[in-house]
């Protein structure tokens, strides 16, 4: 069965004055209808760039997609605006952004900005589009929708604007909604409301959500599947339970350590991950996380780790998962028997190499 949306081996580069930045280095994932995939990572890990590349939002130049594919129901649409007469962006896939305050046109009425999508993709008449825009505003629970539709973004609060963004993104009933840190710029109580809203709409329409975030609490609450990104690669991909209870990558462990939890008492010390992400002008030869990893080994310096499969839904890109790696690391999940943990890509393994 083909996934609703699948991205394979995506590579994105940026040509800058300082040289070429390899922002995304071989990212693959897929998502099914009704599912929520969370992409987690710190700033600069390439999570936003990945989704912007899929949506064709990367300015080219300086950006460049060097490899990879993005398929909707099995058909590659990467670098194309339309497929089978339907536009991908705004129609099949909707997207909302981090900062709703600056993501709406300041000189255009809210209603017009929503109606615009319907006019362009669905050939609505201006009157129908306006009526539908008001319905959408009601859907995202904006009070006094008819009056609010005629207002401008500066008359709205941040949370309200994010609702407007959602209304705009789901106007054409997309199959996938990409939410790029939708709650980062909002305060905590509003965050919860926005997340609830997204879940409600998902339940109603059965759309898939790809949630980009750096907040593990949001992941725990929303996601079915999680992909952890670091330095332009997915270092661990898992279901949400596997990720939290069977973490298989030192970076994931580090993230968890840095996150407060309900069980932790007031004496619990949050431990930040030391150091900073590598310079993507010249990615390190071996594992990108090596310099910050407390368990780094000789091989980590010289070879980029293979992706090891722990279960059907769980992979980790770490040499610690290698069957011949002798150490046990506290908190790090490993496959039950040595035999199960085998690399997804077979080349780096001795048994295959000549």
């Amino acid at each position: 069965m083909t996934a609703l949306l699948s991205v394979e081996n995506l590579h994105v580069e940026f040509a800058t004055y300082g040289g070429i930045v390899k922002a995304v280095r071989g990212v693959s994932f897929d998502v099914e209808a009704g599912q929520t995939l969370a992409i987690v990572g710190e700033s600069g890990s390439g999570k936003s760039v990945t989704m912007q590349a899929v949506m064709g939002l990367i300015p080219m130049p300086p950006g460049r997609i060097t490899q990879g594919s993005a398929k909707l129901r099995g058909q590659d649409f990467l670098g194309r605006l339309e497929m089978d007469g339907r536009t991908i962006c705004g129609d099949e896939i909707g997207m909302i952004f981090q900062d709703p305050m600056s993501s709406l046109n300041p000189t255009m009425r809210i209603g017009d900005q929503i109606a615009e999508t319907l006019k362009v993709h669905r050939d609505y008449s201006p009157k129908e589009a306006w009526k539908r825009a008001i319905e959408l505003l009601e859907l995202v629970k904006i009070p006094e929708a008819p009056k609010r539709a005629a207002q401008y973004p500066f008359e709205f609060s941040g949370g309200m604007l994010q609702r407007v963004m959602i209304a705009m993104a789901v106007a054409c009933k997309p199959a996938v909604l990409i939410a790029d840190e939708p709650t980062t710029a909002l305060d905590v109580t509003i965050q919860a409301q926005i997340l609830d809203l997204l879940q409600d709409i998902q339940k109603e329409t059965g759309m898939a959500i790809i949630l980009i975030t750096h907040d593990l609490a949001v992941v725990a609450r929303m996601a079915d599947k999680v992909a952890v990104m670091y330095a332009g690669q997915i270092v661990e991909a898992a279901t949400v339970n596997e990720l939290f209870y069977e973490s298989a990558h030192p970076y994931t462990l580090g993230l968890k350590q840095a996150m407060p939890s309900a069980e932790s008492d007031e004496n619990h010390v949050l431990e930040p991950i030391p150091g900073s992400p590598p310079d993507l002008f010249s990615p390190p030869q071996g594992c990108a996380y090596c310099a910050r990893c407390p368990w780094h080994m000789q091989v980590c310096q010289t070879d980029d780790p293979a992706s090891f499969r722990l279960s059907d839904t769980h992979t980790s890109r770490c040499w610690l998962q290698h069957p011949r790696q002798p150490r046990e690391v506290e908190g790090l999940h490993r496959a039950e028997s040595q035999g199960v943990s085998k690399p997804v890509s077979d080349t780096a393994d001795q048994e295959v190499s000549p």
Partner: protein
Amino acid sequence: MSQYNDGVHRTLRDSDFEPLGEQSTTPLLVRPSRSYWQDAWIRLKANRRALVSLYLVIGLLLFTFIGPMIWRVDPALQDVDQISIAPGADRSALVAEAYEPWVNGQVEPDFAGGSGLRLAAEPTTLRVRLLWDPMPGADNYRVYRNNYPIEDPQALGIPLADITRDNVYWYEDRLDLRARDYYYAVVVLDELGQPTDQFETVEVNVGRVITAVEARNRGLVGAGESLAVGDEVMMPWHPLGTDYLGRDMLARLMAGARVSLFIGLLAPLLYVVIGVVYGASAGFLGGKADQVMMRFADFVVALPFLLFMILFQVVFGIGPGESGIVPMLIALVVLLWPATARLVRGQILQIREEAYVSAAKLLGASHHYLILRHMIPNTLGVILVTLTFAVPSAIFTEAFLSFIGMGVAPPTASWGSMCNEGLKNMLTHPHELVFPAAMISITVLAFNLLGDGLRDALDAKMRSAE
């Protein structure tokens, strides 16, 4: 096989899984620590256009201040033999004998004759001798001279003289002759002295001559050198030609540069300083004083600028012998300080609210310290940029006012007044307009580009999106 990790294949050994230990495996990112101004200077140096404009400005200053030491020609000196000379024009002159009056109306010996209106001797800048045959039914004639070929009998040029004496069929022209082509015409006059349509014309190519005495007096030849008639001497050199009064263009451009740059640099400096003090006081005092001070500034800003500049010049009334530079300076300062004042006040108000100022206050910093350590360094960049952009606009204003005759009074040279004078002879001697206009343009261009570069270098927030 796969593309994974550049296709590196190797057999992993047990030693590969040895822990690395605590040593850091990547070199720390070390960046040299640089101050704001060092950083700005590095950014400016990387900006090619800004750097070129910086060299241009330095070049202009050299031209203005060092130039007159090298090119020691009086900008007010008139070279009457070379008026409105284009750069690179022929400046040779032949030594001729001293002028002697022409009394007999005879053709000079060895000079080819002819018929009709003709020359009686080699035409020189000392004199042109014309001779013609008597025309039927006329005894009075009028002689005309024209600078252009005669096409229309109605347009013969300047009338030089009426010849009314009997049996005189010759005329000697000594009126302000230049080394160029002239077109003479002799018209028959009727009994009433009215010109008829009967006339003859001749084209005369006047050669430049100078007497030996004069050549010596002007120092065109060395003291010991002998001069004979027919020798060639070189007239004074004007690399950029001369203007309509025979003044050296290069020397005048240098003199004009002094005036234009004096106004262009000093006026902005003065009003920016006044604006900074005023704006900073308003911003720092705040409250009622700030409001009153800013109302007043708003008010001056609302005045139509050039109109009031003109009015100022009228009111000051440039008397004889005055250059009009000081009134213009005062007018510029009086009208332009509020823009800087507003800008600086805005900056100060903004900085006052910054967290680092609050932090400094919490740590017990004095007013004095706040102003010295936070306010001034953080507004200096903006002020510097304002100053750079103020220079071209002051130069423009000077040029504009001088151009409409409301600026620097003649004979003081400024680029604007030179343009004004050059405009009159634009069609025949374009160099008189082109050079001062080019100087204005280059200066304004250089300061504009420098301003852009400074803005980009000093403040990333003010960075123009170019």
